């Protein structure tokens, strides 16, 4: 009897553990507990609609930056005390540190418009330290525009995130590059990490795919159909036009930068079958890494070491994910079944995010979901579960977020989520949008 009970308990625990594995509950802050942060609206200290509008832009952007950072538990608006402080002397600390707000940290400040400039003063206070609560005190002045209200919000939010998030810089000023079909042809577009300021970069009027921005944010490499087939093309963000890059015979696509900006990896069919090549950032020193009749495509570099590449190979039939050294040696297979594509290597070098249809076959296409795999152990977790088609994950520079494409709304759009699969947010709505790439910084 006792033995049966023990066995039953064992089975219960085992099944609980197994199902928990499919939904990851930690992994975002890498073990750091979420900090309870209150960020009420900054006080508008000059009258008029101009200040009002700029303040609104600032507040919405600032609060969103903090809420989506992945390391805070935000105190909801309904718990804010009635009087909102605009300066240190207005703060009643224990109002914020006790229930209902129960905040550990308080971010507050004021906004003024003077002489065509927007001035923002901001503070970060530790509510439990009434002696010397100030953690941060900052001042910003920029020309009074909506774009600058947004910029200041990003900057102050990043300061707070850096300070409270274990020294990892915030991503509020990072960009996402993607493919949009909304102009009638697939072109490369850019947007802020939160989906604001979406703008068209290329005007190829052909087919442009697979954008990857350089680590120094100077150029976007992508692939486009030209008179000489698919070529790796370079768009200069400084000059706002294409700049030269060598052309190769055959079709050339899926470019990826090494994190030190020295090299690119890409796939080329210049010998007839697709293989992975590396080339210097200037386009010289071409080296072939793979061989064989089967497709080889979608390389991604280990950004921590720049000495490894993960990619997709059809050498056993359906595509699987592999890693190899950046000279092509030491090939290791990572996925064991199904249809696995679109690997993206995490900034800390430990994980691969990719798209996987675990059970694949003709006639039953199945759902494609985003997975994260620990490279050392090959243990994986499934991040999306919506039964649709999710693909092209790309890690944020802080390693806490993943941007990806999803057709869950009926049309292909760009979404972000935390690296544990929680808090999905839709970034695009117009036309069809795909293949997002998060900047290195």
């Amino acid at each position, binding site marked *: 009897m006792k033995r049966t009970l023990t066995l039953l308990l064992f089975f219960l625990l085992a099944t609980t553990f197994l199902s928990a594995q499919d939904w990851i509950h930690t992994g975002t802050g890498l073990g750091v507990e979420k900090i309870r942060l209150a960020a009420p609206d900054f006080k508008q200290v000059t009258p008029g609609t101009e200040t009002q509008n700029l303040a609104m832009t600032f507040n919405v952007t600032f609060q969103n930056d903090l809420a989506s950072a992945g390391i805070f538990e935000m105190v909801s608006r309904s718990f804010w005390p009635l009087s909102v402080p605009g300066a240190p002397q207005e703060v009643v600390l224990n109002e914020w540190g006790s229930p209902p707000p129960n905040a550990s940290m308080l971010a507050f400040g004021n906004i003024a418009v003077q002489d065509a400039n927007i001035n923002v003063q901001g503070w970060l206070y530790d509510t439990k330290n009434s002696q010397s609560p100030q953690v941060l005190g900052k001042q910003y002045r920029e020309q009074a525009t909506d774009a600058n209200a947004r910029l200041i919000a990003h900057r102050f939010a990043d300061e707070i995130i850096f300070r409270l998030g274990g020294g990892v810089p915030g991503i509020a000023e990072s960009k996402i590059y993607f493919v949009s079909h909304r102009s009638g042809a697939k072109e490369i577009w850019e947007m802020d990490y939160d989906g604001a300021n979406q703008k068209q970069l290329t005007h190829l009027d052909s087919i442009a795919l697979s954008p990857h921005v350089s680590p120094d944010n100077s150029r976007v490499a992508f692939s486009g159909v030209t008179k000489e087939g698919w070529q790796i093309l370079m768009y200069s963000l400084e000059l706002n036009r294409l700049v030269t890059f060598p052309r190769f015979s055959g*079709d050339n696509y899926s470019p990826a930068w090494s994190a030190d900006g020295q090299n690119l990896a890409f796939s080329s069919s210049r010998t007839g079958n*697709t293989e992975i090549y590396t080339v210097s950032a200037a386009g010289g020193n071409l080296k072939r890494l793979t061989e064989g009749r089967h497709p080889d495509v979608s390389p991604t570099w280990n950004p921590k070491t720049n000495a490894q590449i993960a990619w997709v190979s059809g050498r056993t039939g359906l595509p699987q994910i592999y890693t190899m050294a950046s000279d092509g040696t030491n090939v290791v297979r990572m996925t064991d079944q199904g249809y696995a594509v679109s690997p993206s290597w995490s900034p800390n070098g430990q994980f691969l995010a990719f798209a996987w249809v675990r059970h694949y076959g*003709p006639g039953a296409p199945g759902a494609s979901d985003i997975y994260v795999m620990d490279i050392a152990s090959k243990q994986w977790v499934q991040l999306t579960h919506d039964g649709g088609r999710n693909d092209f994950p790309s890690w944020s520079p802080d390693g806490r977020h993943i941007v990806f494409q999803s057709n869950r709304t009926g049309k292909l759009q760009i979404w972000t989520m935390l690296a544990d699969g929680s808090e999905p947010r839709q970034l695009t709505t117009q036309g069809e949008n795909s293949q997002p790439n998060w900047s290195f910084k």
Partner: protein
Amino acid sequence: MKITRSQWTRVAVALAVVLTVSACKKKTAPAPPPPPPPPAPAPTASLTANPNSITAGQSTTLIWRTDFATDVSIDGIGKVDPSGSRTVTPAESTTYHLVARNDTGTQEATARVTVTQPTPPPPPPNNETEAQLFASNVQDVFFEYDSYDITQQYQQVLQRDAQFLQQHPNIQFTIEGHCDERGSTEYNLALGDNRANATKQALVSLGISANRMRTISYGKEKPFCTQSTESCWAQNRRGHFVYQR
């Protein structure tokens, strides 16, 4: 005035004297009739054409020589001098026939002129017709799911395609590799390249020169149909031929 008898007499005598004197120049005895000349030898004849090989439109010179002939003619020209030359411009290969005659006999001579037709100029590329011909004769090949192998069925299609291409050696074309909508954008580009390349290699081994064809992959970017059905997916998994020139 009446001519007197004596005058008559004097004239007659004078006449007689003149006659007699002239008739009597040679005081030799009348010679025997000359023997009949020996019969003439049979004629000889030769006829050459220089040059003896021309292309249509060019000229050649007929040169002939005969001996002892009293009548020489060349077919198609008519009576000619016993020896001579004549420029002719035959439109096609001709054997010139000379006949030389005399009382004794006849001699013939021939000279053959070979006329080669020039290579007809290539017909101006009537592109529309040629493109239409191409489209109806060169059929696409289709692939199994996730595959870039040419199946038996499409090997035969390619054989017929190759036949047409061999009959029209000036035609150049592109092979596009396509995939169905399932699967990922980048992997489908690579799979499309493998399909285009497999098609190209199959044609090369059927004798079509590699430099007549270009390949490109369109992955799933340019589908032929957009329904999410088995039959539409099968339509899109293909090597598609496009006439270039």
